[in-house]
């Protein structure tokens, strides 16, 4: 797997081209081709992970040219874990999608769907392992456009409108990122992250306003794409109007890779010392605190299950940013862990919600009451996901909550820990009523015993199992994230 770093990017793109080409001829090939490509991607990612954990970061110089001149990608532990997450997550989502989406999308739209999903996967993979800011930007753009594509692929007016809004706002975000990259280049002369990181202290001393501006622009640019609180306006529409599998991809995986990008820029390029000399983390702190409360409170008022999940994503992203903005290893590890955990639970929730919507044709919370009687397994998975969101012990959400709270106390700020705790309570306030009504609410006559087909049910159940499993045996992601956080803070 020496070529793994190149393959995880190239393979999905190749798959996308081939699926797109085959789509108009034999749609079945495109469907299973997409799932297969994602599965191979997951396999490569897993082998990369095992390799990276044994031998340390893996740098791959595309074209054989080393860093300052050529384009390099580097799979470090963070990259490998997120790649694994992307690969496995995408495999499960596409497995769900291949049985679920044909009915939801229709033949014409479906042709575009599989290549777009794979393009998105390739873009995300490139984003998390890019070593230079230029590639980071390019991959972020590929992700944005492909993401818009999978929102609006079925041409429903609401989806079109949401996609348009997302497209324009993310164009603003990419403008900001491009500008920031150019500014950094102008003061350091590099695009390679390591090289910039070495040159930045001197540059920050002589051009304080340029570097500060660049950081602010990165925060705005990636903040827009990752739906950081005041910049989140596009998310609820986009994530709720998209087809179900797309919602899972978007809410579970896509927003996460931008967080990873921002974490890399903050911690690997700027480094903790320089970062906390700028106001950026403090700004992020307040925004994220706002996100945790705004997202939750608005979610309470939602009547549509997918909108509820979308607002919950805003709150949970706030939670991740909150951890990242605290200058503590534990908090950052908790935040990165939550990147992983939230992806697992949110994908589980969206897929379960998608299955419910497909079976009943209803998406309002009231219409789905009593659903547990006709779809017991799906509802059970949803319940586990919801409990994990609240952070009940024994689920993976608890572990990340633990570390973020511990980080807050490391800083001597118990009030921050209270904030974390209070936001958990708020997430209970919108998940639990639905879960309760699913079990005990009146049944408006859902069809009996109508679980989805196995290919649809399996991903949901697997993800719920992962929620519990990593809740009880959190070693796998946790150890790595602690290591990553440690390496972040070792940087000077």
């Amino acid at each position: 797997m020496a070529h793994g770093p190149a393959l995880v990017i190239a393979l999905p793109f190749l798959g996308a081209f081939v699926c797109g080409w085959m789509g108009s001829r034999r749609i079945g090939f495109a469907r299973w081709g997409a799932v297969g490509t994602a599965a191979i991607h997951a396999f490569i990612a897993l082998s990369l992970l095992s390799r990276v954990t044994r031998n340390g970061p893996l740098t791959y110089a595309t074209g054989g040219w080393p860093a300052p001149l050529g384009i390099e990608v580097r799979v470090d532990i963070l990259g490998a874990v997120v790649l694994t997450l992307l690969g496995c997550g995408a495999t499960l989502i596409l497995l769900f999608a291949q049985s679920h989406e044909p009915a939801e999308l229709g033949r014409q739209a479906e042709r575009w769907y599989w290549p777009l999903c794979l393009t998105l996967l390739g873009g995300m993979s490139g984003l998390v392992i890019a070593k230079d800011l230029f590639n980071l930007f390019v991959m972020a753009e590929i992700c944005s456009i492909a993401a818009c594509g999978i929102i609006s692929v079925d041409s429903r007016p609401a989806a079109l409108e949401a996609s348009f809004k997302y497209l324009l706002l993310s164009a603003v975000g990419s403008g900001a990122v491009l500008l920031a990259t150019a500014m950094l280049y102008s003061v350091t002369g590099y695009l390679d992250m390591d090289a910039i990181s070495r040159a930045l202290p001197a540059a920050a001393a002589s051009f304080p306003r340029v570097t500060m501006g660049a950081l602010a622009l990165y925060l705005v640019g990636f903040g827009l794409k990752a739906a950081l609180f005041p910049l989140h306006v596009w998310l609820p529409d986009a994530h709720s109007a998209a087809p179900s599998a797309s919602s899972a991809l978007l809410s579970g995986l896509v927003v996460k890779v931008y967080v990873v990008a921002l974490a890399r820029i903050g911690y690997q390029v700027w480094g903790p010392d320089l970062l906390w000399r700028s106001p950026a983390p403090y700004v992020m702190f307040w925004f994220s605190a706002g996100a945790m409360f705004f997202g939750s409170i608005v979610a309470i008022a939602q009547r549509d299950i997918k909108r509820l999940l979308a607002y919950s994503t805003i709150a949970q992203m706030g939670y991740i940013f909150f951890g990242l903005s605290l200058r503590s290893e534990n908090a950052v590890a908790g935040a990165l862990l939550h990147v992983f955990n939230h992806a697992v639970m949110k994908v589980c929730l969206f897929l379960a919600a998608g299955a419910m919507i497909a079976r009943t044709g209803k998406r309002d919370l009231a219409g789905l009451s009593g659903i547990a009687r006709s779809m017991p397994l799906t509802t059970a998975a949803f319940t586990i996901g919801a409990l994990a969101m609240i952070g009940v012990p024994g689920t993976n959400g608890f572990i990340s909550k633990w570390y973020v709270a511990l980080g807050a106390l490391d800083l001597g700020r118990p009030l921050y820990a209270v904030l974390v705790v209070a936001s958990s309570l708020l997430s209970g306030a919108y998940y639990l009523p639905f879960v309760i009504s699913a079990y005990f609410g009146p049944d408006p006559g859902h069809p009996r015993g109508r679980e989805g087909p196995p290919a649809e049910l399996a991903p949901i159940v697997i993800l719920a199992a992962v929620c519990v499993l990593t809740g009880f045996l959190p070693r796998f992601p946790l150890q790595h994230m602690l290591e990553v956080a440690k390496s972040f803070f070792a940087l000077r």
Partner: protein
Amino acid sequence: MSQQLLGHLNFLGAMVLFAVGLYTMLTHGNLIKKIIGMNIMDTAVFLFVVSLGYVRGGRPPIGAAGTAAGFVNPLPSALILTGIVIAVSTTAFALALAIKIHENLGTLDADEIVRRTRSG
């Protein structure tokens, strides 16, 4: 000196254009106008990047074949080229969406669109 001034002039121009683009994008309800605004904003960013390179006083990266010492790092150019590609793909995609929206809802006005999608 004149080079510096020229660079700064372009900085200024880029900023004004960025503001104009953003303003167009945010205040106009018409989707196509928004798209044009987005394009203006993008080109303003590119202009900014190009003039950055100019202030640093480089030479064009291509032309002096074989004389390795004469090369300027070609990365900023590549950056903008890619930016242009992305801008045009975004534009094309946005236009396709706009046409679809017009087909479905018979309007291109953002407020009107929101009203019509919400009502049914």
